[in-house]
Each structure stands twice: as C-alpha cells, then as structure tokens.
C-alpha cells in the first residue's frame, strides 16, 4: 500500500502515481513505440494486430482503438504517452484537451484565449464542503 494522497480531492485530474503506474505500463509502452516512424506506419496499417504484442487488457485495447482519451487515463494512461497516439492521428495537445474536457474544439480554444479554465471552483471535488471535510 502507498500512502493516502491529498491530491485525490482535485477534480478531473488523473495523477500518474504508483497505482496508475502499476496498471498503465503496457499501455504507455505501446505509446512509446510510436516514437519510431516504422512503428507508426505499422500501427496505422492495422491497429488491432499491432496492439497484440503489448500485453494490454481488453479495456486498454478498447480505449486505444476508440480513441477514448479519458478512458485511457482511467486504465493507467499517462498523457505524455497517450498524446503520441494523437500525434499519429494528426491531432494536437489542444485538440485532445478539448475532447477530455468534453467541449468542442472552438469552445476550448476560446476558453484558452480568454485566460484558460479558472482555478476558482475547480480546486476540490466538492467545493461546497468546508475545507476540513473535503476529500
């Protein structure tokens, strides 16, 4: 067991810690393989067969094949790794950030131009509770 983590009270955030590291290794190492042009070509040719060699769980495979970016984080994906799938698709960090936060590309881009997502109201999962009672 690792120690309890006070960052778990932060909403909409998947810290790549020991627990996620233990389940995410095969998924992230598949992503790492996409740093090589030859592997990107093979992945694009036949995604399902390319994934066979990495020891992925069924759910990890599904999230990759369906480009379920949030789902990948829930099964141990690390954003610096999973973004390499997006690069393969010709997407940017901002495209994927918009998809993870559930808004249209233009809406997300406008939010960033207007100063980004405010920390106000986004610090704790339940902002209504008094500080000592938050997760």
């Amino acid at each position, binding site marked *: 067991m690792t120690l309890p*983590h*006070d*960052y778990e009270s*932060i*909403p*909409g*955030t*998947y*810290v*790549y*810690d*020991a627990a996620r*590291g233990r389940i*995410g*290794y095969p998924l*992230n*190492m598949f*992503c*790492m393989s*996409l*740093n*090589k*042009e030859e592997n*990107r070509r093979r992945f694009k040719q036949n995604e399902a067969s390319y994934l066979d060699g990495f020891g992925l769980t069924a759910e990890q495979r599904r999230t990759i094949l369906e480009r379920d970016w*949030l789902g990948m*984080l829930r099964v141990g994906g*690390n*954003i*610096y*790794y999973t*973004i*390499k799938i997006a*690069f*393969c698709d010709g997407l*940017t*960090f*901002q495209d*994927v*950030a*918009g998809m*993870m*936060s*559930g808004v249209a590309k233009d809406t*997300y881009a406008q*939010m*960033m*131009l207007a*100063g*980004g*997502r*405010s*920390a106000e109201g*986004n*610090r*704790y999962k339940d902002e209504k509770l008094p500080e000592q009672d938050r997760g």
Partner: protein
Amino acid sequence: MAKIVAGIASSHVPAIGVAMDRGTTDTPYWQPLFKGYGPAREWLAKLAPDVAIVVYNDHANAFSLEIIPTFLIGVADKFPIADEGFGPRPVPAVVGHPALAWHLAESLILDEFDMTIANAMTVDHGLTVPLSVTCGKPAAWPFPVIPLCVNVVQYPPPTGARCYKLGQAIRRAVEKFDQDLRVVIYGTGGMSHQLQGERAGLINRQFDTAFLDGLTKDPVALSKISHTEYMREAGSEGIEMVMWHVMRGALDDNATEIYRHYHIPASNTAAGLMILENGSSA
C-alpha cells in the same frame, strides 16, 4: 574558476517550438508571446556564456517507463534531437560539454546528490524549446549545453526543496571547476497548465505571478510549495515548476530580476520567462 553568471527560467511548451519551426511566430495568436522573447535574446547574445546547464524534463522520449531517473546528467559530446512521435524538430543537434558535465557528475554524487549519468541520450522539446526561445534559429546553438533531467512524469517528482538544494550543489561544483567558464543555468517548464482530464486547460495567473515574484524575493519559502498545491493551484502539469528551483538554488541569494515576460495562452499553457543575474558577475 568557472562561475554561474545568470539564470533563465522558461516554459518549454512544444507548440512554441512548432510555431518557430513552421514560421508562424508573426501570426496574431503567437506574435504577443514572441515579441516578449526579443529582449531576452538580445540580453543572452550580449552575455555570450561559455556553456549552459539546462534543467528540464524528458517527456517519454529519451527515457520511457522502463527506467525513471529522478535526477540525470548528460555527459556526452553530442545529443541528437528526439523523434517525439512526429519526427525530430528541425533544429541543430545539441553539443555537450563533457569535461564540465563529468566534473558535475562526480562532484554532485560526492556532495550526496545521487545523479544518474547518461553517456548517450536524445533531447526533446523540454530542452530545445527554451534554447529556441532564447537563441532564435541559429545554424548551430551558440554554446555547449549540459542536459540535466528531472523526473516530473511519474509521481512523485523530487520536491521543490530538494531541487533548490541540488541547485546549490551545482553552484558549489561549478565553482570548483578549474577552467574560467561563464555558465548560465536554465530552469524550464510550467507555468500553470493542465493537459489531462476533465480539468484540462486550467490556468492560474495569480499563482504564477506570485511564483515569479517569490523567485527573487523569497526563493527558500517558494521552494517549499507542496506537490499537491502545485497540482491543485497550477494544474497537474504545473508541477514542472519544481525545476525552476534548481536554477534559483544555483544563483546568489540576492540575484536580481532583470527581465520577465508572461503570456496566456501558449496552446494550453501560461508561458513564463524570467532572467535573473548574479550581481557581482554579470
């Protein structure tokens, strides 16, 4: 004797490198950011340091999850540019400074900082974007570079306080080197940003401004910010700012801020740049 003459803090947003590589820095989106880099480039060209130590993090390029060094120093004479998943950036390869790098490795380890030593490694945008930001697009980088990597990809990164102390140890080591070299040290990453989850896009100008102010005024207190506070206040990837403390620890207590630039947004990130000079040696 070698001497650290100045510190540079800079964000290393990959999109900043892409804008330079594609020549889109004059567009309305990018122009306000790049305009603020001009004075820093002029200052650095005039300073003409002999070598730079660049503190940065690798982003799943030189290193994977197979082996995760908390602190690593590159001692090679050349560092090729990494393919990060869309081909290498079209920038010059980075030339190292093996003599000073090996001296640092040896001194830091004997000073109780247990460095990993890399004889062969590529470098990614974490290192090359701050060079581009401060040097523009030269045919070759104007000085040799010693890469010093800090893990911030796998939680937990080293604490800010530990990073600050590493900076102090780097300074002690540099000052024991037997050649007259004028050294600059870069601390890179940040500022507030979150690239992942439903909370992606978080920016905190108030936190960043206080951080920039504290870097000069009270760096020891600043180095005690906890990991959770970085993530809660400055976004999960804002934790990269621990690397700025390495730079700050290597400077004089009373180092002087001579330039700052802050702009929102660079893609998903609040981009910050700060230059600090050691009073007696500029």
